[in-house]
C-alpha cells in the first residue's frame, strides 16, 4: 500500500537559505505522527513546504501525497488533494463571513475533485454539528474569518474548517500555542474525532502537553532541518524530562 505521505531526502530553502536538510518521513493512513523539536529546527518550514507557501522552494528530494508529487501541484490543488494545514497563526480575512468562507472553500475543493457542491442547508446543518463538538457559538461563524477572534477561538475555527473539509492528511502546526487548558481539550477532542483508518495526522509541537490529549503512534525529533530520532509515544515523555539540548548539539 502506498504511504499517505512520503518524504524522501527532501531539501528546501527559503530566500537562498537551506532549512530542510535531507528530510525523510513516511506517514501511513490511520497513523498519528508527532514532530517535536527545538525552536528554529524547521518544524513550521516543513508544513509550509508541504502546503506550497510562496517562497519555500524544494531543491532536492521528493514529497508525495498518496503517490502524487506535491511539487507539481499548486497550493489549492494540494488542498483539493486532501492536504490541510492548521496554521499556527490563522490569518484574518476582513469582510468575509466565516460561513461564506467555509462554503467557498468546501465547494471549491469539491469542484476540483469533480464532486457536487454541498447545498447551503446541508452545509449549515453540518457546520452546526461541528460547532457543537467544538463548543463554538454559531454567532461566531457570522463574523468575518478570524477577525477579532481570541487565540482559542482561532484554533477552534481552524479545527472546524479541518473537520468540515475532511482532508486525507492533517498537519497541525503548533496548534497548542496560545490555548488554555479547556480550549486544548476541546480542540484535541475535535482532532481525535478525525482519527480514522483512512486519514493521517501530523502534529507539530514544541511541548509534550498536547500529546497528553492526542496520543501519537509515532514521535519524531527534528533538529537542524531533519529528523534525528524516531520512537513511540514514550519518546515525547522522555523529551519532556531531558529537553532538546542534546539533539541541538548532535545536529551541530
Amino acid at each position: 500500500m502506498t504511504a499517505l505521505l512520503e518524504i524522501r531526502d527532501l531539501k528546501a530553502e527559503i530566500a537562498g537559505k537551506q532549512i530542510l536538510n535531507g528530510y525523510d518521513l513516511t506517514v501511513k493512513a490511520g497513523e498519528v505522527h508527532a514532530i517535536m523539536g527545538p525552536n528554529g529546527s524547521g518544524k513550521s518550514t516543513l508544513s509550509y513546504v508541504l502546503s506550497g507557501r510562496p517562497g519555500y522552494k524544494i531543491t532536492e528530494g521528493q514529497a508525495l501525497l498518496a503517490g502524487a508529487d506535491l511539487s507539481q501541484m499548486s497550493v489549492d490543488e494540494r488542498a483539493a488533494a486532501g492536504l490541510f494545514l492548521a496554521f499556527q497563526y490563522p490569518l484574518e480575512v476582513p469582510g468575509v463571513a466565516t460561513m461564506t468562507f467555509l462554503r467557498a472553500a468546501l465547494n471549491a475543493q469539491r469542484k476540483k475533485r469533480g464532486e457536487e457542491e454541498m447545498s447551503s442547508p446541508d452545509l449549515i446543518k453540518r457546520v452546526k454539528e461541528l460547532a457543537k463538538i467544538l463548543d463554538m457559538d454559531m454567532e461566531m461563524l457570522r463574523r468575518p474569518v478570524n477577525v477579532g477572534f481570541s487565540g482559542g477561538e482561532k484554533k477552534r475555527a481552524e479545527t472546524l474548517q479541518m473537520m468540515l473539509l475532511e482532508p486525507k492528511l492533517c498537519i497541525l502546526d503548533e496548534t497548542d500555542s496560545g490555548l488554555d487548558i479547556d480550549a486544548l481539550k476541546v480542540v484535541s477532542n475535535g482532532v481525535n474525532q478525525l482519527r480514522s483508518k483512512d486519514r493521517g495526522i501530523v502534529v507539530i509541537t514544541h511541548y509534550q502537553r498536547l500529546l497528553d490529549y492526542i496520543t501519537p503512534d509515532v514521535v519524531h525529533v527534528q533538529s537542524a532541518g531533519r529528523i534525528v530520532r524516531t520512537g513511540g509515544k514514550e519518546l515525547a515523555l522522555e523529551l519532556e524530562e531531558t529537553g532538546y539540548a542534546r539533539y541541538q548539539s548532535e545536529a551541530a
Partner: protein
Amino acid sequence: MAAVQETVEQVRRVGADQYKYGFITDIESDLAPKGLSEEVIRFISAKKDEPEWMLEWRLEAYRRWLTMTEPKWARVDYPAIDYQDLYYYAAPKSTAGPKSLDEVDPELLRTYEKLGIPLHEREILAGVERPEGEERPRVAVDAVFDSVSVATTFKEELKKVGVIFCPISEALREHPELVRKYLGTVVPTSDNYFATLNSAVFSDGSFVYIPPGVRCPMELSTYFRINEKNTGQFERTLIIADKGSYVSYLEGCTAPKRDENQLHAAVVELVTLDDAEIKYSTVQNWYPGDENGRGGIYNFVTKRGDCRGANSKISWTQVETGSAITWKYPSCVLRGDNSRGEFYSIAISNGRQQVDSGTKMIHLGKGTTSRIISKGISAGRSSNAYRGLVSAHRKAEGARNFTNCDSLLIGDACSAHTIPYIEAKNPSCVFEHEATTSKISEDVLFYCMQRGLSQEDATALVVNGFVRDVLQQLPMEFAVEAQKLISVSLEGSVG
C-alpha cells in the same frame, strides 16, 4: 511564482480582453455636423424640438464655455482633447420621435438584450435570483443610446401614482415648467468646464419627478450606451423628490471597444425637498481601454445633489470599474436643516486606468450629517486617487461627518492616493477622518488557497471582503451583479 505576482500577471493578461460589452451595434446614425459651434447647438435643440428658452440657455452656456479652460488639477494625464473633432449628437436613424416598445428597432432591442437590460416590462434584470415565492423586483428602465433615449419602460404604471419618468428631452416638451424650475439650480451652467460644455450640448438623459408623499413603487434605472465612433455622450439627468417622497435610482453604462478615446461628460442633478430621500446608485463599466492604455472612455462627470429641504437625504453609491479616466465627485449640498448626505464608493482601477474620484459634503444647514465610505482598489499600472471635501458653513451648527477611505493595492506597479480637504467654519461641528492603505496580503491569499480556493477566487474573496461595507448599500438586485463585475475586472474568473 509568488501568489501576488501571479495575480498581477493574471490581471495583466486579462486586461481589456475581459470586457464583454465591447461589441459594436451596426446601426445607421443621424449625426450632427462634426465639431462644436452655435449652429451645432441650434441643430441639437431643433432635433429635440425644444422651447426657445432652452436654446438660449444652451447658447449662453456655450458662450461661457468658450471663455473657460480645461481643469488640470486632477491626478490624471491625457493628451489634449480636440473638441472640434467630435460629434456632439448621434442618434439611431430609426428612432425619430417617441415610440412604444413595439416600435423600437429590433437591432437596438438585441443590443440591450446582449447587455442584460430588460426592455420588456415583464422581464427582470438578468442574473437576479430570488427565493421561490418571493415577488420579483420590477425595474423601470430608460435606455439611452448615444444621444437619445430609445425606450422607457413602465411609464404608464408610474404615471398612475404621479411619478414622471421619461427622457429629459420629452420632459422639456411635456413638463417644461418643472424642468425650467430645477434645471441648472444644482449644477449651474457656469459650474465647471465639463458641466458648462454639457449644458450647451446635452442631448438626453432621464428626468424623474416624485410627487409629495409618494414612495416610488419600483426601482428606476437608466442605462447608458455609447455606440457611435468619435462621439461624445453628454447626458443630463434631473431627479426631483418632492416633500416626503422616496426614490431609488440606478444607472449603468457600457461602451464598445474602440481604439480612440471617447468623451463622456454628464451632469446629474438631484433635488430633495423636505423629508424626501433619493438613493442614487451607479454601476459604471465604460470601456476602460486596452492593456497599453489605448482607447477607453474619458468619464468627466459632474454629479451633485441638493438637500434643499429639512430632514431630507441623498445617498450616492457607486461601483466604478470602467473608463480610461474617471473624474467625478458625486456631492451633496446639505442645505436643509438636519439633512443627510451619504457617499459609498468602490473604485477599481486596472491596466492603465486613471481614477480621480471622491465626493464633496457641503454642510450649510444646522444639524446636518454626512458619511463617506470609499474603497479604492488599484491593480496593474493604474492610478487611483480619492479626493474629497468636507466643509461646514458658519451656520452649520452641530454638523457631523464621518469619513473612511481605504485603499488596497494589488501588485507593485499601481498607485493609490488619498487627498482629503476638511474645512470647518463652525466650532461646534465634528468631523472624523479615517484612512488606510494596504497591499493585498500574500499571506492571506496563501491561507485562502490552502483551503482550496484558486488564486482568482481567493483574490476576489479578499477584494469582496474589502468592499463589503459599500456593496451592502447597493439595492439587492444589483449587489450580485456588482460583485460579479468586481471579480471580472480583477481576475477574469467569470466568463
